[in-house]
């Protein structure tokens, strides 16, 4: 390079005291969250399970998005993302925690899913699906998919950590080999859980696109989380040089692209159903346009697509840390709204409604995820220091 960058180096390790302070803060929030959630479960199980489902979906979609993105980075051999990859991997590593977080759901199936209730066996349409939509298989599929995702997450994370010490190129290539079948497993798995967890809330309704939309939303939310995390670490003096404006520009472009992709698949599903206008399909949207739910839908159109589309288009916005932080936070909120709008109209049939348990459950699941995430950085580097492409990434410059 003709440029003479004064390559200042960052501290890649969080001091143990700071680390423990942050861990304690998250732990405190998590304990409060779970106390609240348990109190909700004891007093009002129905609201608890509905709120918990949305909170669970929000958290796991981000972890799945992380796994997807890490594997894609390995497959494309990308250099620009190396300095943020450890944060991605740490998010991906939260997947095993969802084996525990998933456990409450099978207990509340009767509150949530019509097909699990007594009448289903007599329903002419639902009885055709009983071989798939039943409590045993729902539980087995859930644990199986999360288990497989966790396996890949742990293997890829272990390889990356091993490389911190050895710097072996072979580990990069091995991660690439694991990622190819991994992406396939992730596609199939997240489709299945998308069908199971959300689509089957309306057990008569079906859409082949549904799993893709679930994955797209999660990938976008994951990108927003990464941006927020990088900026949070930066404001505390970490990753100041290793994640510079050029990297934020690229992260911003990814956030933008994934947001547009979500809009593309969501619109395709909506438009095709609107156009064919068949009652058994349009009912899904009709329920979600009932009463004040319509305003939530319109908020999604504006806030999850149109406004960020125009606002995030200029180069300057993606290169400004303040603007990027705002849109990342905003799109996370929109992702939660999206899931809420997909799930809750089944429960609040006449219009928008929300229980105090929704934010409480969200705090509980997200802080649990946060604890696992943060545990990856106890005396361990914030950046994959042994990655052979690290140097290339530090010198990276946008065209």
């Amino acid at each position: 390079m003709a440029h003479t960058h004064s390559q200042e180096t960052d501290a890649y390790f969080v001091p143990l005291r700071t680390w423990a302070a942050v861990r304690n803060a998250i732990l405190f929030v998590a304990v409060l969250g779970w106390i609240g959630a348990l109190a909700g479960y004891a007093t009002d199980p129905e609201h608890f399970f509905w709120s918990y489902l949305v909170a669970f979906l929000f958290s796991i979609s981000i972890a799945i998005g992380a796994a997807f993105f890490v594997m894609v980075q390995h497959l494309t051999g990308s250099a620009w993302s190396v300095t943020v990859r450890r944060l991605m991997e740490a998010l991906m590593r939260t997947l095993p925690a969802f084996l525990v977080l998933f456990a409450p759901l099978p207990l509340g199936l009767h509150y949530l899913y019509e097909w699990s209730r007594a009448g289903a066996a007599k329903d002419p349409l639902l009885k055709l699906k009983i071989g798939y939509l039943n409590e045993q298989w729902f539980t087995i599929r859930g644990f199986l998919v999360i288990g497989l995702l966790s396996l890949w997450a742990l293997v890829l994370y272990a390889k990356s950590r091993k490389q911190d010490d050895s710097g072996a190129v072979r580990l990069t290539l091995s991660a690439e080999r694991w990622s190819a079948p991994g992406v396939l497993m992730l596609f199939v798995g997240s489709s299945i859980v998308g069908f199971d967890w959300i689509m089957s809330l309306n057990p008569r309704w079906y859409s082949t696109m549904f799993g893709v939309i679930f994955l797209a939303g999660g990938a976008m939310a994951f990108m927003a989380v990464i941006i927020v995390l990088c900026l949070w670490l930066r404001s505390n003096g970490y990753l100041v040089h290793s994640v510079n404006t050029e990297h934020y520009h690229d992260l911003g472009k990814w956030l933008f692209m994934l947001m547009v992709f979500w809009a593309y698949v969501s619109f395709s599903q909506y438009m095709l159903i609107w156009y064919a206008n068949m009652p058994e399909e349009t009912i899904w949207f009709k329920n979600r346009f009932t009463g004040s739910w319509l305003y939530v839908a319109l908020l999604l159109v504006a806030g999850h697509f149109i406004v960020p589309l125009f606002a995030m288009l200029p180069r300057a916005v993606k290169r400004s840390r303040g603007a990027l932080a705002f849109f990342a936070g905003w799109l996370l909120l929109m992702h939660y709204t999206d899931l809420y709008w997909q799930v809750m109209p089944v429960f609040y049939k006449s219009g928008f409604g929300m229980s105090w348990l929704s934010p409480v459950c969200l705090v509980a699941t997200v802080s649990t995820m946060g604890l696992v995430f943060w545990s990856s950085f106890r005396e361990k580097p914030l950046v994959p220091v042994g990655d052979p492409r690290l140097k290339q990434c530090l010198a990276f410059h946008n065209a």
Partner: protein
Amino acid sequence: MATSFLDNLPIPEFLKPREEAPHYGVVGDFDTPEELLRAIRTLRVAGFTKMEAYSPFPIHGIDEALGEPRSPLGRIVITAAVVGLAGAVALQWWTGAVDYKLNVAGKPLFALEPSVPIMFELTVLLAAFAAVLGMFYLNRMPTYYHAFFNFSRAGGASNDRFLLAVEAADPKFRGEELKTLLDSLGSRHSELVEA
């Protein structure tokens, strides 16, 4: 030059015969992009402002070296895209819901859902035309004659040479003397090029 008779006449500025610069400038011929960039930086420090580089592929960092701002093409394209989007809405609404109302399968005469594909396509179409035609306009293309082509090795710029022209319009332009300066910066062949 002595004050000419014409200068005293009340004729508009643009009609006055201009003093034709007899030369385009001095052009040097470098082996590598790095040598070219080094030469540009040295000359910029020395106070030269009107320079132009020629290369077979875009060189990273040359705009900063030459002090060129970012291209304004982005704004042209955005404008065209918005026109395309608005035009598509207008076209579909006016033809479908105003000028030629035809009930097809009970669908609304105009609705956003089925209008989105054409809205998107026309936005892209106009944006693409704006990008290419805007680039032509900014680059003054096609321009089939340019003084640079008088350089005996102008063809090198489309093959494997990296050329640097110090234009005659530069206030510090000193004709033949510059050739030695360019040679000293690593130019393999420097030449005073006719306008």
